[in-house]
């Protein structure tokens, strides 16, 4: 399941729902991305997240489908926020469930690595030096490419 929304999300409620009544699940891995008050050595007071409506949901669903081809996942959830966010705010939640922990960990990290490089979101930060678009990181490309090794 994939959601793009302005509202915050409740991690506890989301993962409880994801695994509800499924006694075949032995492992749940989850990741929460958060707004930091510091990026590239500059203090960040606010961030806005823009996306490409329609393509975003398709890209996220495709990433989840790829993860399902690689690992035996019971369920997967991706929630990504858009709009204006402040330091300590939640940005993204990825949660995956499986019978065993390796599948849950690997699929969760895989989805995050692909989301970072394939899903059409863009961050703009407000810093003391003014507003700036966040640059893509080479380390994110490297992280994605290791899944093809």
């Amino acid at each position, binding site marked *: 399941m994939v959601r793009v929304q302005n509202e915050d999300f409740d991690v506890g409620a989301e993962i409880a729902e994801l695994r509800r009544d499924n006694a075949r699940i032995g492992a749940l891995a989850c990741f929460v991305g958060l707004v930091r008050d510091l990026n590239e050595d500059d203090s960040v007071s606010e961030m806005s*997240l*823009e996306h490409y409506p329609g*393509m975003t949901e398709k*890209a996220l669903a495709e990433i989840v489908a790829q993860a399902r081809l690689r690992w035996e996942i019971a369920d997967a959830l991706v929630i990504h926020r858009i709009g204006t966010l402040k330091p300590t705010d939640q*940005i993204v939640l990825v949660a995956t469930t499986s019978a065993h922990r390796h599948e849950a960990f690997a699929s969760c990290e895989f989805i995050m690595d692909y989301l970072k490089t394939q*899903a*059409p*979101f863009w*961050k703009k930060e407000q810093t003391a030096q003014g507003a700036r*678009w966040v640059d893509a990181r080479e380390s994110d490309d490297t992280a994605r490419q290791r899944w093809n090794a």
Partner: protein
Amino acid sequence: MITLLYFARLRESFGISSEQAAPPAEIADIGALLEWLRSRGDAWQNELAPGKPVRVAVNQAMATNATPFAEGDEIALFPPVTGG
């Protein structure tokens, strides 16, 4: 006609988020389309200069310079993504 969409830094530089465009019939792939857009000069020439990291999606799927497009397609131009 095709629909062109611009996101993030490109949207701000071009001053528009979308447009309907009618490139000449011989312009049939993304490489040629980018060349045609560059000929508008100014921000177009600058932001779409060869070597600049511009990403293109045709009908919401990632494309390369060799990807063809057709009448009615939705073509989006944007910088490398930075979500998550």
